C-alpha cells in the first residue's frame, strides 16, 4: 500500500468538522508556517518538493509561484481552481467533499507564501452541495481564528471567499476563470499578459488546482525534500487518480507516482482489473482531453518498457504512441465499447463547451462533432476520416486557449490508433446503427 498524504484521514468519521480534523493533525502546517517560517521559506519548500500542478498541465507549482510579480502597493490574489469539469475527472470533488479543511488549510499556507490577503475558491456551478461543505469549513476556520485578521497572532490577515461558476468547462481555463470571477462572460483572455503579471482586476494572480493547493499542506508539514523522495524523477509525490469506466473497482485513489499502470489496473489493491472478466481495449489516462491509448500501449511503451503512472512515462513516445497523465481522469474501456461513439461523445462535449471566441475552435469543434455523429450513425464516408484528421490538425495550436488542443487531441489519437474501427463504421453502416459497440480492435491483440 502506497503512502497517503491527502486522503490519509479521509475516512475518519466527522473529518469534515473542524474539531475532528484538528485532532487528526489538521492546521499544523498553518501553525508551522506562520510561526516559524517566512513566506520565502514556504516558497522554497514548495520548489524543493518538485510538485507539479495537478490540474492537468503538470507545470511546476514552485516555478509558477516564483513568476508572480510583486509590485509595491498592489494586492496579489490566489485563486483556487475548483472548476473541475473534464469528463472522467472527479478527484477534486472527492477531496473537497471528504476533507474540505485540507483545502482551506492549503489555501491559508499558500496565500501566506504568496503574500495574498484575499483569496478565492472558484467552484463549479454543478458542485453546489460541495460548495456548502467548503463554505461550512471556511466558517469554522474563521471562528477558530485561522482566517480573518491577525491569524494566530502572527499579524497576517487573510480573507477567503468561495464563488460558484455558472457551469462552463471553459471557466477552468485560468484567464476565463478570472473573467468569470470578475463578473464577465467567461472568455479566455489573450496572453500575454499572463495572470502572474495581470490577473484578477489587473493585479498579479496565481491560479492553482484544488489538489495542488491541498498538497502544500504535507509539503510544509514534512518538508519539501521529504516529499520529493516519493515518486520517480521529475514526477514527485502522490497523485489522486479518479478511475472510471469498465473497472471492477472504480473510484478515487491516491497513488505514489511511479506505480506501474499494470499494477494500478489489475491489482486488487487498486482497480481490481476489468469488470465482468472482460478484456481491456483502450484507456484514456488523464481525462478526456488526452490521447487515447490502445490495448498494446497501455501497460508497455512502444519500446517495451513498463509504463508507469508518471508524467514522463505516460508521455513516452510523444503523441504517436504515448499520452499524458493530465488531470488523472483514468478512463478504461473494455472490448465491448465503441471508440467511434466515445470519440463522438468527447467531441460533442468540446463543441458544446467551446466559448465561441476564436474561429478555429468555434467552427472546428462543431464541424468535428457533426462529422463524427454522421460516422457513428452510419452516414459517414471514407473521406470523412481524413477530413477529421485534417480539421484537428488545423485547430491544434491555432487557438487562444488550450481548449482547441484538448478537443483535437482525442480525435487525432482515436483515428491514429483505431482507424479500422472508423472504416468499419463507414463500410458497415447498418450494423453500426444496430450495435452499440465496435469491432473490438481486430488488428491488435487484446490483453
Amino acid at each position: 500500500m502506497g503512502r497517503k498524504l491527502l486522503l490519509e484521514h479521509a475516512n475518519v468519521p466527522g473529518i469534515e468538522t473542524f474539531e475532528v480534523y484538528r485532532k487528526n493533525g489538521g492546521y499544523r502546517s498553518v501553525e508551522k508556517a506562520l510561526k516559524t517560517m517566512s513566506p520565502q521559506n514556504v516558497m522554497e519548500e514548495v520548489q524543493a518538493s518538485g510538485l507539479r500542478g495537478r490540474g492537468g498541465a503538470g507545470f511546476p507549482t514552485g516555478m509558477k509561484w516564483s513568476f508572480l510579480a510583486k509590485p509595491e502597493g498592489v494586492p496579489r490574489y490566489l485563486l483556487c481552481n475548483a472548476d473541475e469539469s473534464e469528463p472522467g475527472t472527479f478527484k477534486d470533488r472527492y477531496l473537497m467533499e471528504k476533507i474540505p479543511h485540507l483545502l482551506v488549510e492549503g489555501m491559508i499556507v499558500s496565500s501566506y507564501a504568496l503574500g495574498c490577503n484575499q483569496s478565492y475558491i472558484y467552484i463549479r456551478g454543478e458542485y453546489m452541495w460541495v460548495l456548502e461543505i467548503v463554505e461550512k469549513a471556511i466558517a469554522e476556520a474563521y471562528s477558530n481564528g485561522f482566517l480573518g485578521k491577525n491569524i494566530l497572532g502572527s499579524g497576517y490577515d487573510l480573507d477567503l471567499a468561495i464563488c460558484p461558476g455558472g457551469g462552463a468547462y471553459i471557466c477552468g481555463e485560468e484567464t476565463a476563470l478570472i473573467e468569470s470571477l470578475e463578473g464577465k462572460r467567461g472568455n479566455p483572455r489573450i496572453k500575454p499578459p499572463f495572470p502572474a503579471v495581470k490577473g484578477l482586476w489587473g493585479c498579479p494572480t496565481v491560479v492553482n488546482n484544488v489538489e495542488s493547493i491541498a498538497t502544500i499542506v504535507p509539503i510544509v508539514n514534512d518538508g519539501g525534500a521529504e516529499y520529493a523522495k516519493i515518486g520517480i524523477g521529475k514526477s514527485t509525490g502522490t497523485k489522486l487518480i479518479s478511475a472510471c469506466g469498465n473497472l471492477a473497482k472504480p473510484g478515487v485513489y491516491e497513488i505514489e507516482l511511479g506505480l506501474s499502470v499494470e499494477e494500478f489496473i489489475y491489482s486488487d489493491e487498486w482497480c481490481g482489473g476489468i469488470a465482468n472478466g472482460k478484456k481491456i481495449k483502450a484507456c484514456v489516462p488523464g481525462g478526456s482531453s488526452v490521447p487515447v491509448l490502445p490495448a498494446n500501449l497501455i501497460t508497455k511503451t512502444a519500446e517495451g518498457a513498463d509504463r508507469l503512472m508518471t508524467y514522463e512515462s505516460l508521455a513516452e513516445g510523444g503523441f504517436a504512441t504515448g499520452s499524458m497523465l493530465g488531470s488523472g481522469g483514468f478512463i478504461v474501456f473494455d472490448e465491448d465499447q465503441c471508440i467511434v461513439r466515445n470519440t463522438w461523445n468527447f467531441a460533442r462535449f468540446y463543441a458544446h463547451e467551446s466559448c465561441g471566441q476564436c474561429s478555429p475552435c468555434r467552427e472546428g469543434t462543431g464541424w468535428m462533432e457533426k462529422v463524427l455523429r454522421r460516422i457513428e450513425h452510419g452516414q459517414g464516408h471514407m473521406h470523412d476520416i481524413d477530413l477529421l484528421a485534417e480539421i484537428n490538425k488545423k485547430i491544434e495550436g491555432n487557438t487562444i486557449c488550450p481548449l482547441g488542443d484538448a478537443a483535437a487531441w482525442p480525435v487525432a489519437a482515436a483515428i491514429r490508433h483505431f482507424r479500422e474501427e472508423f472504416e468499419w463504421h463507414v463500410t458497415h453502416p447498418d450494423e453500426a446503427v444496430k450495435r452499440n459497440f465496435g469491432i473490438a480492435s481486430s488488428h491488435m491483440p487484446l490483453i
Partner: protein
Amino acid sequence: MVKVIIDDIEVEVEPGTTILNAARKIGGDIVPPAMCYYSKLQGSGGKCRTCLVEVAAGSATDPRPMPKLVASCSTPVNDGMVVKNKTSQRVYDNRAAVTEFLLINHPLDCPVCDQAGECHLQDLGFEHGKERTRYEEKRRTFDPIDIGDKIKLHMNRCILCYRCVYTANQLTDQRVHGVMHRGDHAEISTYIEKAIDNDFSGNVIDVCPVGALTDKTFRFKSRVWFLKPMEASCECTKCAGKAVIWMFGDEIYRVTGRKDKYGEIEDIDGKTAWICNECRFDKKDKSMWKIEGPRVINRHSVISQNQYIADDQIESKKLTGK
C-alpha cells in the same frame, strides 16, 4: 526603438508595438489580414486568427523560433524579431484553414449581400479560399433581426469578431447588445430584442467586417461599386461631420465614416472620426453636405475602378493616407 524584420523587410518601431502594426508601418501586401482587430477599439483582436504569422526568431537575445503561429495583432515585437508572413507556406496553409472555418457556417449569399465589394471575408476568401466546400452538414442559421429601426442584423453572416460589441462599449453610453450562448451557436444579439438607441450606434455597421450588420436605409438599394464615393463634410454638433457620401447621380444613397485601407475609421485632427446616426441615416440630401472631392477606396476593391482620377493623384493620396 526596436528593429523587426518582417518578410525580409526591416522596420523600426516603438517597443510594445504589435507585429501587425509594425507590418502596417511597412505597408503593402505583407500586412496580415485582420478580421477582428480594429486599432481604434481597445481590447479588440486575437479572436479571428486570420492574422497568424510565423516567428522565425523570437528576439536578438533569444533567437529561438516560437513553436506555434502567433496572432500578429496581439503579439508585441521584440528587438531582433524575425517574422514570416507571406514568405511562409505554413502561415498560408493555416490562414487558408481559418478561412475555411470562417466560411463553413457562412451563407455565401454575396449576390444579395450589401457588404459585397467591401467585405473583408470576401477578400480573404478570394485570397485563401478553396473553390469547393468540404462542409457537408447543415449550416447554422438564424432569422435576421432588427437592431433599432435603422440597423439590420444578419447573424448568419456574422464571424463573431466582437468589433460591434467593443464599439458599443466604447462609443455609446449603454451597451444593450452582446454575445449570447457558446461555441458555434454563439450569436450577437440584443437582450430580448431591445433596440439600440444611441447617437453613435450606427458605427457598428462601419466596423462590421462582413455583412452581418447593415444599414437599413441603404439595404438593397444598389451595389456599392455602382456608387460614387465622395468625401464630404457637414456642420454637426454631435460628431466631426467628416464622412464619405455614396452617390448615384445627384442622389445620396448612403453615408459612411471615412475608412482607410484596413477598413478602419480614419483619424482626423487626432481624433477618430466616428460619425453620428443623424449624419449617417438622416442627411441624405446633397444640400446638407459640402463635397470636398472624390474618395479613393484602395482596399483591393472594385469600387474605385471607374473613377475619373489621374493615376499620379491616386498615388499621392495613398502616400498621405487620405
